[in-house]
């Protein structure tokens, strides 16, 4: 059990930031992203024994996160307060700065994309290698490259349009 906890902590440390970005990019909402990230890591914990000796653990975790995000229903009520509202992310007053504004705008633009595009672009922005993104999304690398090119263009256009407003 101690080893499992240690392994889980290592995995959490190595992947939580990107998983949070993925969930945030998908939902456009930090609280929901927090819930989804927690759900993802609960599933990671539950299935850790089955994946102990695999090489690409990050791909596996991304896939869990993607399925968790995709399965997240808007109609689904948030679980009881004591379950999910204790934010894993320490909340603190957001400093007002140009940088924060730009980040908020970027998330807002990502939320305007289609669901699959949100997932792909957050992985691209987090510099996940293309073969891994292809593996996670279940499409060929060639197809993925075309998609990424299109999404990058779409996101850039959205950002520039919103920035002018």
């Amino acid at each position, binding site marked *: 059990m101690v080893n499992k906890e240690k392994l889980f902590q290592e995995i959490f440390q190595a992947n939580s930031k990107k998983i949070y970005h993925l969930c945030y990019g998908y939902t456009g909402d930090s609280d929901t992203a927090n819930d989804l990230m927690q759900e993802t890591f609960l599933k990671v*914990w539950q*299935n850790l024994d089955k994946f102990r000796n695999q090489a690409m653990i990050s791909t596996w975790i991304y*896939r869990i996160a993607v399925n968790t995000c995709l399965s997240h229903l808007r109609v689904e009520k948030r679980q009881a307060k004591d379950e999910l509202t204790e934010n894993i992310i320490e909340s603190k007053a957001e400093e007002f700065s140009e940088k924060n504004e730009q980040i908020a705008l970027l998330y807002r633009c990502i939320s305007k994309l289609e669901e699959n595009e949100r997932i792909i672009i957050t992985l691209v922005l987090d510099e996940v290698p293309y073969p891994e993104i292809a593996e996670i999304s279940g499409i060929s690398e060639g197809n993925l490259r075309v998609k990424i090119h299109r999404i990058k263009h779409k996101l850039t256009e959205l950002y520039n349009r919103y920035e002018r407003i």
Partner: protein
Amino acid sequence: MKEFDVLQNIWQDQQDPKLDQDEILKRVKRYRNRLANKLLIEVLFMSFAIAVLSYAWYMIPFRMWTTHLSLLIFMACCLFVLFAQLSDYRRLHAEEDFLQKPELYIQYLKNFKQERHKLNTQKYLVYTLLLGLGLLLFFVEIFFVSSIWLTIIGLSLSVGWILICYFWLMRLYIRKEEHYLNEMIEQLERLSKQFSE
């Protein structure tokens, strides 16, 4: 006019979220304990029902074969519910299919939906019929040892409750569960289509 590289820099510049891994580990443990407790309560509840039935069967000198048969049917029903709940519960929470690719996960959900539908309709019908048969058989002896009115009231209340469960509560439950599963499948299929376009 910003290029994508600039957006990537903005993204990279965002502050790292401060993540409390001890808290998530605590939650994992809480979640695991809650699952274990839920499982335990279900098992205890059904075991208790079986124990009560066995005790009544052993202690009360029933005279008619119909009563013995009815008790046997009740116990079989309890065991069926116990195993059905346990197997679905364990399957739902094993969630191995989260490890699979999206299309496999959709197939898993479709199969799961089919099996749940079969359990909630066909199997539940058999369960209800058996329970009704058990009650009828049980009330044969009640009829001979007590008044006709007591038999009628007891039988009416029991059958009434079974009918409410079958025609109202169970249908509500099925509708809710299928709505949830359908929405999940629909959303995943839409996304799968988007990925393959």
